[in-house]
């Protein structure tokens, strides 16, 4: 009973936060018609998201297929690597990509040797490049899961019928790809719609501004509250529609563990072998290069980082730990309920973005209190709310099967409340709770969004600090701070995940 009241209260709170923010920005929007600048932002947002989703999906197919049908030393490590960019702080990815693809990066040096025109990682190309870097691995992992869901018997049947690679692709792989790839592309599209950090660092010109970035510019640079509110309304509408459309497809959720089982799928010999090897090598280089560049560039400066960076790191850790705790606790409470409306409330934050929630809160609090004073609490609440749907989706199936398996035994023994949580829920779900907490902590740690709206001189988190250092061209210092940020993010994730894996039995 108490848990049901908790779930209802929390669902109402989430609805208030998300729909309240949407309502506040809609009410304060000073005009309902979009000017040319706003339209340009909408067009750019949708276009870059579509390009990023399409490219990620297109490139993921050969990579995933190569990983599925080849066995080689280090294959496990490559699959693990595919899980990493999802947790990589976006500013770090951008910094690394600039080191590789920037003016003095390896790519342009090679182009220069060949007397070719240099490549500019800014604008649309740069934004899409960064989004593919961040999302390609996610799609690859979703596809791997899809491939493994094809029963091994079917591949054996295909072998005994003597089907070649083309026939296998047609009869076994394409039907799976149709479903999984659509879902995966939609996930990437939705994620890229609310892209802020990438647009802030690689876009920014009037022709390369996302709606999310335009909100920030309106609020922070122009202090035009009406315009910010109008843009936030547009952004909420965009995301809500995209999430509603995406919700009609079953979403593969494949950043979980355990992607290395199942029988060996036959790999064709000959030139395809080399082609597969090429795809895997190129992808590994594409993913490792930028991260390696950050490590190389940042390591020397790590020892003498200024106190301000350490202070920001402390703030980020606090934000990550508290937000992850809130997201996991909230997801647990909501997953305990079977009501359809509660389920809807848990997914509601997916329709919101950091800047929409941030703008809503900003508009409510700024007449009453200096926004800077609330920088950390707001960052925590917004990050917890944004991470909650991910954690909820992770926990829900486990919770349901726990209830199906042991619900009656629990009821027969009269185990309720704290005793049931301590003795059954926590130990049975520990693995997924640890993993979920790790994901939530890493996402919150790396988020550069709402914090940029609220933080003054003294409330900046580490990602914002990195972005500010990049903006003032102190690249070595930025790289050192970025290295600290990655280290802390992954350490937090690993710590939570390890705690989960130490589950008994």
């Amino acid at each position, binding site marked *: 009973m108490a848990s049901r009241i908790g779930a209802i209260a929390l669902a109402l709170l989430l609805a208030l936060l998300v729909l309240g923010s949407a309502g506040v920005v809609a009410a304060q929007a000073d005009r309902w018609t979009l000017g040319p600048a706003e339209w340009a932002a909408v067009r750019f947002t949708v276009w870059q998201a579509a390009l990023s989703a399409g490219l990620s999906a297109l490139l993921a197919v050969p990579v995933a297929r190569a990983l599925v049908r080849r066995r080689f030393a280090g294959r496990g490590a490559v699959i693990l690597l595919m899980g990493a960019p999802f947790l990589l702080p976006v500013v770090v990815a951008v910094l690394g990509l600039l080191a590789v693809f920037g003016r003095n990066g390896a790519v342009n040096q090679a182009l220069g040797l060949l007397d070719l025109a240099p490549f500019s990682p800014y604008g649309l190309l740069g934004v899409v490049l960064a989004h593919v870097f961040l999302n390609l691995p996610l799609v690859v992992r979703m596809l791997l899961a899809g491939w493994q869901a094809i029963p091994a018997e079917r591949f054996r049947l295909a072998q005994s019928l003597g089907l070649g690679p083309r026939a296998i692709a047609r009869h076994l792989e394409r039907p799976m790809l149709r479903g999984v790839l659509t879902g995966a592309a939609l996930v990437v599209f939705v994620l890229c719609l609310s892209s802020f950090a990438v647009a802030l660092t690689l876009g920014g010109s009037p022709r390369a501004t996302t709606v999310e970035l335009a909100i920030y510019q309106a609020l922070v640079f122009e202090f035009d509250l009406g315009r910010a509110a109008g843009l936030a309304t547009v952004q909420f509408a965009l995301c809500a529609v995209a999430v509603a459309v995406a919700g009609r497809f079953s979403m593969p959720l494949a950043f979980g563990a355990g992607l290395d089982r199942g029988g060996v799928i036959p790999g064709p010999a000959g030139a395809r072998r080399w082609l597969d090897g090429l795809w895997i090598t190129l992808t590994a280089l594409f993913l490792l290069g930028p991260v390696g560049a950050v490590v190389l560039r940042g390591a020397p400066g790590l020892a003498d980082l200024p106190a301000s960076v350490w202070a920001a790191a402390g703030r980020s850790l606090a934000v990550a730990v508290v937000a992850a705790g809130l997201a996991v606790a909230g997801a647990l409470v909501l997953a305990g309920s079977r009501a359809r409306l509660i389920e809807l409330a848990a997914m509601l934050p997916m329709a919101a973005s950091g800047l929409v929630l941030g703008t809503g809160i900003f508009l409510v609090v700024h007449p009453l209190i200096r926004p800077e004073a609330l920088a950390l609490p707001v960052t925590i609440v917004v990050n917890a709310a944004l991470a909650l749907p991910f954690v909820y989706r992770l926990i829900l199936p486990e919770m349901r099967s726990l209830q199906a398996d042991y619900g009656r*035994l629990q009821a027969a023994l009269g185990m309720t409340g704290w005793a049931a949580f301590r003795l059954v829920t926590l130990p049975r779900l520990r693995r997924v709770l640890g993993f979920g907490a790790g994901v939530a902590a890493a996402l919150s740690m790396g988020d550069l969004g709402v914090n940029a709206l609220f933080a003054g001189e003294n409330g900046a988190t580490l990602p914002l600090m990195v972005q500010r250092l990049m903006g003032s061209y102190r690249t070595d210092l930025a790289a050192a701070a970025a290295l600290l940020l990655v280290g802390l993010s992954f350490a937090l994730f690993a710590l939570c995940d390890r705690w989960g894996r130490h589950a008994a039995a």
Partner: protein
Amino acid sequence: MLRLEGVRVVQDGFAVTADWAVPAGAKVALIGPSGAGKSTLLLAVAGFVPLQAGRVLWQDRDLAPLAPAARPVSMLFQDQNLFPHLTVAQNLGLALAPDLRLSEMQKAQVTRVLDRLGLAGFGARRPGALSGGQMGRAALGRVLLQARPVLLLDEPFAALGPGLKADLLALVAEVAAAATVLMVTHDPADARRFADLSVLVADGVAAAPVATAALFADPPAALRDYLG
């Protein structure tokens, strides 16, 4: 006396009715084809499935307002009778204190039951480290500690093979001698061995209990069909 008074239970669009009583201490087999509603009836007595009509009474007391844990009933399910992450002793301890804060006396009680069931020294193991027969004994230990007057068995030993199953049923008869037992089974041999009364569940009706020997000596049409 356990009385099912005009009971009607619906689960997954399938209904089963029962209107009869058995005396306290009776050993009753519920026999009939799969899907006839035997388990559903048991779940209704235990309080997991609501009644569409009628009442379930124990010693003239209506059980309707009682939650499963508050009923004078303990139940062995088909499976999932033990939490795999808790030790055997902890699993048994849950019968005495759902929060596992056991007094020394209660801990001693758990140890005594383990000894009695031939599980001495197994208390610190997890269920996964036990054989099927040992798991059955541990689950039995749990209901023994619950010490409820009515025991419901939903084919808990079906996966064990005939020899072990017979052993465990003999153990149930021994340790639950005073309890009223309703046992779901597919196997006429179980009914003959264990139950003095049998209820035939077929075509949506749980018939009134009759002496097991008499039922099998002159089986009604539905039972003849089932036995083949």
